[in-house]
């Protein structure tokens, strides 16, 4: 059993949490029936600061999803969020874009750095906000998670562009948001989340597996429910939900993005883009995804190399920080 003192600060005391970390059993592997613990967690999310990004994020995702959307629509979305506008302009003026003129308006930003780049900046600046909120649970670093998310986003986008010949904007968005469930757990149930991290490390088990045992759900599910509740496009919410088990989507239209997310996460595990969640025994699923996406290791290595270069360039020019 957990310590009472831990329970008292934990925000999801009820909700059928499986207790006893010593007697972990095999994965239940059930369908996505909505688990009461998950639903009560969603209530907390809706009252928490995490929800503050909902409007802007959903708005940008709509714009990305709609090829006819123009600059004015984007302007309208960020006009109501002056701190965001300020951040976006700051990024637009950063050395990365190397604009000679000082960009002081969104219109100018569109002209100097382009609409597509601007959409990415707005989205990443807004999503980044929730990585800055609240206290950090020991055992993992929020900054590392943000770095991981950006890396997955970049990699996903590059795979879509170079291998699939598609714009890959949704892949970028999915990358940024795929681990939003972890932020929720970290902020709204910090004590249990700390335990999850500890058990995962000690017993060398996948984080997802420990989450299911300790919390009754894993962060991809949390992210999935949030993206549904927040009316994200289906492709996005489905791929976030299934990014740990893209095989469950079979040949559905969403499996491409979900599988890509899985591949990207796999490639960004550990090392410079990891956040302390080592992955165990996932090679089979990884190979399945490569087959499904017709990706060759040669191609992935090339793309990964370019992603590292791009990432270093962004970091070196102060494009993002947490």
């Amino acid at each position, binding site marked *: 059993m957990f310590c009472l003192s831990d329970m008292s600060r934990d925000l999801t005391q009820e909700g059928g949490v499986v207790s006893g970390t010593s007697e972990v059993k095999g994965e239940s592997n059930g369908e996505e029936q909505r688990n009461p613990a998950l639903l009560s967690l969603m209530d907390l999310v809706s009252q928490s600061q995490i929800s503050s990004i909902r409007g802007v994020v959903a708005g940008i995702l709509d714009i990305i999803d709609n090829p006819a959307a123009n600059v004015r629509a984007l302007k309208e979305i960020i006009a109501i969020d002056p701190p965001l506008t300020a951040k976006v302009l700051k990024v637009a003026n950063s050395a990365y874009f190397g604009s000679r003129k000082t960009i002081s308006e969104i219109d100018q930003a569109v002209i100097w750095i382009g609409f597509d780049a601007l959409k990415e900046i707005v989205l990443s600046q807004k999503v980044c906000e929730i990585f800055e909120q609240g206290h950090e649970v020991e055992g993992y670093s929020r900054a590392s998670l943000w770095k991981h998310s950006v890396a997955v986003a970049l990699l996903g986008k590059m795979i879509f562009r170079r*291998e699939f010949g598609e714009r890959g904007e949704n892949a970028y968005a999915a990358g940024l948001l795929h681990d939003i469930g972890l932020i929720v757990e970290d902020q709204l149930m910090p004590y249990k989340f700390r335990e999850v991290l500890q058990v995962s490390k000690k017993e060398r088990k996948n984080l997802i597996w420990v989450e299911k045992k300790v919390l009754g759900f894993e962060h991809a599910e949390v992210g999935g429910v949030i993206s549904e509740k927040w009316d994200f496009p289906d492709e996005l919410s489905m791929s976030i939900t299934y990014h740990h088990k893209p095989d469950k989507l079979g040949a559905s239209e969403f499996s491409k993005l979900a599988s890509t997310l899985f591949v990207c996460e796999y490639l960004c595990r550990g090392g410079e883009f990891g956040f302390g969640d080592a992955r165990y025994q996932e090679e089979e699923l990884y190979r399945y995804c490569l087959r499904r996406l017709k990706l060759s290791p040669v191609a992935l290595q090339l793309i990964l190399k370019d992603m590292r270069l791009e990432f270093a360039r962004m970091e070196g020019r102060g494009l993002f920080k947490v």
Partner: protein
Amino acid sequence: MNKTGKKEKAGEAGKTFEEKIRVLETRIRHLENELRLTKEESEQSIQNYYDLYSNMERKVIERTREFKALQKKMARAEKMEALGLLAGGVAHDGNNILAGIVGYLELLHISMAKDDENMEYVEGALDASRQMAAMINDLLTITRGGMEEKKPLSLNHLVEEFLASPTMLELKKIHAGVNVKTSLMSDLLNIKGDGYALSKVLLNLTSNAMDACKEGGVVEIATKNIYVEDGIAQADLKLSSGEYVVLTVRDNGVGIKKEDQSRIFEPFFTKKIMKRRGTGLGMTLVYQTIKEHDGIIEVNSVPEVGSTFDIYFSATREAFEIEVPENETRITDLEGKGEKILVVDDVESQRNILTNILSRLGYEASSAPSGEKAIELFKDNEFDLVVLDMIMPPGIDGLETYRRILTIRPGQKAVITSGFAETDRVKEALKIGAGQFVKKPYSLVRIGRVVKAELSKG
């Protein structure tokens, strides 16, 4: 084409030729895709810039148009204001001078025998002076707060009164061939306004309409209630939501040319060949009065078809009182019984005229040239009434004078006079005890009646 699970290590030395080729092929494929996507995106960006640019261009044109219209409006307003200031100054001084002329003429008139051979000249001069006084009165109304207090009134009532007035009868005589019709809404709402100023508006609009008509023309005076829903424009006007009363004066006369329509409210602007002499300030007065009533005037005119003036006033739900018209007064009714009256005015001619009038009416009148002198006099003398001019630079004004007099003689009766309309200081004087306010130039009858009324008060 590629089998997974092989342990290929791209980017490392020691690759076979085949492997190197595969890396290059992949690289080329990647670059091709990037190139194609970048081209697509650039094309879309160009479209985006174009959208933004055309949007800005449209905005600039729009703003420029708005700006020009506003500039024109402002220039007109500035011109009106400058003219107003000038006219106001002229009117004020002219009014004092005129008061002297009228006063002496009236004294001369009274002192002359009825069959005096020069009577005709004096009456002619008095007539001309009165016309001048009317013009100055218009000017003063236009230039500064000539407005009396606004009271609830019925426009229907005002129109009916106006149609029965001697002025209207005279107008009908001049324009015998013009038919004047009315179309008054029976349950018309009241408005808050200055009846006198509004009757002048009515007079000016009607007489202009009649001037514009040819033989057999028709002038229509109409009233109606309208309700404006929020945001719905009534014609071209932007009215906020609420109840309005509309006064319409319509004619089927010569009309006003489009380029002249914006100028008709300017002082002394006219295109008419005058059948009789106006003051040149009629429409300016109309404009000013409507502005002071927070009303809106709309002009629709087509040359050779006719003109329509619609005036929108905010409606009020307050009821109005019918004022009892002043009775005709005979001079003998105004005569005093030797009561002592002190006239305080800094202008000598004004003092002389008023003391003369009062003496003639049987009062014992004396005068003081300043407030300070008047207070001195009060220390050793008693007066039944003091007539105080309001503005006497550089000395203390009428209100201050009255305050000090009250400390010497509590309850002292007083009448306040001024060339300007009722100001806050006048109101204050009335509040602390002064009986009435008389606007200069005062006629013998008016000042006589006021003095009499004040003295007969308990």
